[in-house]
């Protein structure tokens, strides 16, 4: 439904987007993740035809956004970072105007406006001026504006920014309910949002795509191998060698999160549970086993890792099918 091929955008000498490629399948929700200034908004602006790319090609619903902009735009709904509202129009007037320029036939306009106002819960503000709306309402009117012509593709730049928790849940539900009939690309830097709403994630940093996968695979993949956190009271001895000697253990390193004596990260072969052997080894030597737990990387850590450094080399070698799907509960 959306295809981005080797798209770059340069402003003078500054490269905002550098050779970005990805695909979005029909009905899919794709999360666009990256720190501020990573090129999320620029990529979205290229997709919506707001600005042309310096290089590369982008197609929306089969139409090249540069050579057939009108056709592509007719099938795209776009919520920019700041909702594009006219302060001196009422919500109803505004949505009616948007419906007109988006090409909704005049006979259907009224019902379309009513429908989207109900779906986005702004119907109680229908005759309020857009300039007098609270941030949450502005955001939802922006969303109403994006879906008014029932587009195939929805591009949402931080759709939940500025909403209160209840509205965030409503908006996520709304976005999820739109998937299926619509293909959605949404950008955010709220990580739980991606885990909850998106089927696939593109992580972008400094204009480059650094990772594309499902949220679950990303957390699993980045972990590389199975990692355990072990804390041992070895009474003066160094347990590292003993732990490394346990069959199946590939690497033992001091836990760097909390530099506690006797705390180790123990990596094992994929799919092999070494907890029993580890505990046995420790206990038979008369040491105290203080803590033994699997380590999981939250999406936050994944995000920090891929945006601050290169992916560890072994993760590239893993195929996506091999990576174990793991339901990491995101921190809300």
């Amino acid at each position, binding site marked *: 439904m959306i295809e981005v091929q080797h798209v770059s955008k340069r402003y003078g000498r500054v490269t905002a987007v550098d050779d970005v490629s990805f695909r979005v399948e029909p009905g899919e929700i794709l999360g666009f993740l990256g720190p501020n200034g990573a090129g999320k908004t620029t990529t979205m602006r290229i997709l919506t035809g707001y600005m042309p790319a310096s290089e590369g090609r982008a197609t929306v619903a089969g139409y090249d956004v540069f050579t057939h902009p009108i056709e592509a735009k007719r099938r795209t709904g776009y919520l920019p970072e700041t909702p594009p509202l006219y302060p001196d129009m009422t919500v109803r007037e505004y949505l009616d105007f948007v419906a*007109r320029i988006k090409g909704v036939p005049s006979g259907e306009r009224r019902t379309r406006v009513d429908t989207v106002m109900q779906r986005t819960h702004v119907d109680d503000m229908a005759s309020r001026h857009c300039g007098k709306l609270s941030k949450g309402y502005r955001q939802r009117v922006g969303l109403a504006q994006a879906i008014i012509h029932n587009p195939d593709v929805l591009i949402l730049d931080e759709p939940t920014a500025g909403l209160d928790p209840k509205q965030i849940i409503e908006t996520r539900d709304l976005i999820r309910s739109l998937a299926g009939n619509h293909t959605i690309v949404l950008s955010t830097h709220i990580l739980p949002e991606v885990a909850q709403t998106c089927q696939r994630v593109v992580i972008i940093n400094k204009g480059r795509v650094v990772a594309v996968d499902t949220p679950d695979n990303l957390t699993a993949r980045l972990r590389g191998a199975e990692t355990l956190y072990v804390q041992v009271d070895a009474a003066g001895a160094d347990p590292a060698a003993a732990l490394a000697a346990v069959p199946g253990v590939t690497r033992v390193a001091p836990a760097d999160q909390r530099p506690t004596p006797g705390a180790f990260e123990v990596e094992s072969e994929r799919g092999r549970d070494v907890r029993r052997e580890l505990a046995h080894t420790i206990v038979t030597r008369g040491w105290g086993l203080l803590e033994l737990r699997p380590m999981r990387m939250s999406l936050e850590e994944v995000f920090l890792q891929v945006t601050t450094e290169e992916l560890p080399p072994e993760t590239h070698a893993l195929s996506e099918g091999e990576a174990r799907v793991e339901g990491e509960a995101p921190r809300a």
Partner: protein
Amino acid sequence: MRNVAAIAQRELRSYFASPMAYIIIGFFMLPFGVFFFLYLRSFVSQSMQMAQFGGAMNLNQQVIRYVLQNASVIILFIMPMITMRTYSEEKRSGTIELLLTSPVSDAEIILGKFIGALGLYAAMLAVTLLYIGILFVWGRPEWKPLVAGYLGLLLMGGAFVSIGLLISSTTNNQIVAGVVTFVVFLMLWIIGWFADSAGPVIGPITSFLSITEHFDDFAKGIIDTKHVIYYLSLITLGLFLTSKSVDTERWRG
């Protein structure tokens, strides 16, 4: 065309939803009324002298002509207020993203904005017909030169609007747009003053460039195709350059 109408309507509505339209019309009507009063008073006192000594008086040539000529200068001061926000405000508030990502061509957006601004200007001119109506109640002016005069005002206003749009499209600060527009209009007006003293080569060029100079014939009630073409080409040039400016901004991002 549907899109042009939608955008023009939105522009007009936003003028009248804010105090802007009323302030602009008020600012125009006040000096217009003063000029009307002054010229009419001197016409009345002259006509009383003429009644004693004999001689022809003409409302069109002695009142309407001068009132419209002065109006063309007031318009020069008022027009930046109409055009300054057209593009710059949309760029500042981000609503330009809505327009540029909608299935609407640049030409439709520009034309819509042009017609919207011209619509407010036309409404402003329509209100001045109240004054002219007074002349028709108490005297017998000819309507044909009057039509020529108002046609000239419309054409001249169109030229101002297209230049104003162009300037507004280059900045996201409407005050900057307003000031620059005002200075440009002022230059286009006073450049005509050099016409008499500038010699045989530069003189005709400066008087040709002066926007208000071309209006004089219309004020007299003459529709000269030369001036019509001058205004129409200025409008076309302004709108064309606006579309180029919008396109350039798009590439620059």
